[in-house]
C-alpha cells in the first residue's frame, strides 16, 4: 500500500477550490494553507506555455523532514502518508527547514508543525482527500500506487508525468501529468 496523488496539469484551471476545501475540512487557521496554486509561465512572448499546479506535501518516500525530526514527531504512517504527531512535536522547525517544497508551517493554535495529511482521517474511512473530492475539473486522482489496477497506477502508466524537484532525492508521491 502506497498512497499517491496524480494531478493533471492539463485539466487544472487554478480555481483554488482545493485550497478552500482543505481550509474548511482541516480547520487551517487564517493566513495559512496546506495546499496552494502555482502558475508557471515558460517561453518568450508570443510563444508561451502556462502550467497550473495544485501543490501540497509530497509525502516523500525519503522525507527530509522525518529524517531530521529529533523526536520522530513527523513520521511515515499508514500507506506511506507523512504525518505529524503533535504529542511529540517540540516546534523546533527542522522539518520546515529541511523541506525543499516549503510545505510546513507552525500552526498558531497548536504551536506544532502542520502540513497536508492527504486527509488521513478521511482516507481511513474510505473517502477521498477533501481537495480531490471537490475539484470541479476532476484533475486530481488519489489512490494506491502499489495496486497496478488503481486509477493512479493506470494514469502513471498511460500518461507523461513529472515530480517536483526530483534531484532532491526525496522520491515524491504527488505526480503531475504533463
Amino acid at each position, binding site marked *: 500500500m502506497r498512497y499517491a496523488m496524480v494531478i493533471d496539469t492539463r485539466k487544472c484551471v487554478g480555481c*483554488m477550490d482545493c*485550497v478552500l476545501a482543505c481550509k474548511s475540512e482541516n480547520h487551517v487557521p487564517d*493566513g*495559512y*494553507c496546506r495546499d*496552494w*496554486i*502555482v*502558475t*508557471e*509561465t*515558460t517561453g518568450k512572448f508570443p510563444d508561451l506555455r502556462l502550467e497550473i499546479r495544485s*501543490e501540497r506535501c509530497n509525502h516523500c518516500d525519503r522525507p*527530509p523532514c*522525518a*529524517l*531530521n*525530526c*529529533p*523526536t*520522530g*514527531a513527523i513520521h511515515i504512517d499508514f500507506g506511506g502518508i507523512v504525518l505529524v504527531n503533535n*504529542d*511529540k*512535536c*517540540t*516546534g*523546533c*522547525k*527542522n522539518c*520546515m*527547514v*529541511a*523541506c*525543499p*517544497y*516549503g510545505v510546513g*508551517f*507552525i500552526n498558531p493554535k*497548536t*504551536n*506544532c*508543525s502542520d502540513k497536508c495529511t492527504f486527509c488521513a482521517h478521511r482516507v481511513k474511512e474510505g473517502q477521498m482527500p477533501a481537495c480531490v473530492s471537490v475539484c470541479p475539473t476532476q484533475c486530481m486522482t488519489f489512490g494506491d500506487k502499489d495496486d497496478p489496477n488503481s486509477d493512479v497506477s493506470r494514469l502513471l502508466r498511460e500518461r507523461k508525468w513529472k515530480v*517536483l*524537484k526530483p*534531484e*532532491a*532525492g*526525496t522520491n515524491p508521491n504527488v505526480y503531475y501529468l504533463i
Partner: protein
Amino acid sequence: MEITSTKHNPMVSPHLDVWGWDVALYLFFSGLAAGVLIIAAIQYLYYGERKMSPMARYAVIAASIIVPLAMLGLLHDLANKANILAFYEYWNFTSTMAVGARALLIIPPVGLLFGLTLINEGLSERWGRLKVLGSWLKKYEPILARLTLVCGLFLGTYTGILLSANFGRPLWNTALLPVLFLVSGLSTGAAAMTLLSKDEAERTLLTKLDINLIVAEMGLLFLMLLSFALTTRAQHDALSLFLGGGFTASFWVFIVGAGLVAPLFLEQLQIRGKVMETVVPSIMVLIGGLALRVIIVMAGQASMIPN
C-alpha cells in the same frame, strides 16, 4: 520563466526565514565554547597543566557555562516549548538534533569538572565541598581533559552536520560545513581567550594560533565556494547567493573582509611589531564568526533546489 505561487509570498507565508537570529546566536556561542574547550584541553594534554595560565583555566569554566546560556537561543526558537521534554522522551535515530540534544546535557558538566580540577589549587577554603570534590577529581584530570577534548570536538562539529543533513538545502548540504564551523569556532575561541588573557606571551601565542586558524578558515571557505562552482545547478545557485545574489554584500563585507582578511592583516602586523597591540583584531574575529553563522543560517534557507 515566471512562477507565481499563492503560498510563497510574504502575504500568505510570512515565515520564510524559519530559523532566525536566535538559532544563529546559539551556533556562534556554542562554536566559541567548543573552541575554548578544545584549545584548553590540547594545552593541558600537550604542554602540561603547569603551563596553563589562570585565564585558560577559568576559560574552561566560562565556556562550560556559555553552552547552557547559548541553549536559551534554541529554547527561544522552539514554537512548542511545553513539549520540550519530548527531546528526551523520544529518539529519532536519523536525526542529528536528537544526538545533539543529549550531548548538550553531558558537555557542560564534563567541562565544569575539568575546570574545577584546573582551578582547585587556587580555590579558597570557603568553597568547602567543591574544593574537596576538586581534590578528589585531581587524579582523574587527564581523563577529564580527554573527555573535554572529545566534547569540544563534538560541539564544534555537530551543528554543521545538523545543517548539512538538510539535503534539500544545497548551500548547507556539504561535508565542508562541519569542518568550517569547527575551525571558525576554534578561531573565535582563540580570539576570546586573547581578549581575556593578562599575559603578553600567552596573547602572542594565541594570536599566532589565530593567524593559522584564520588561514585555514579562508582555505576551507574557498574550497566550499569552489566545490559549489564545480558541481550541479542546485549548488551553483547556492553560490550565486554570494556572487551577486541577496547575500553578496554581507558575505564579502562581514565574513571575508571584517571577519577574516582584516584581522589576519592586523594580527600579522601586531606579531611583527608594526602596529600596537589592540583588542580590534580579536573583536573582528568574533564579529566575523557571528556573521558566518547568521549568514549561513539565513542564506541556507534561501538556497533551494531548482524545479
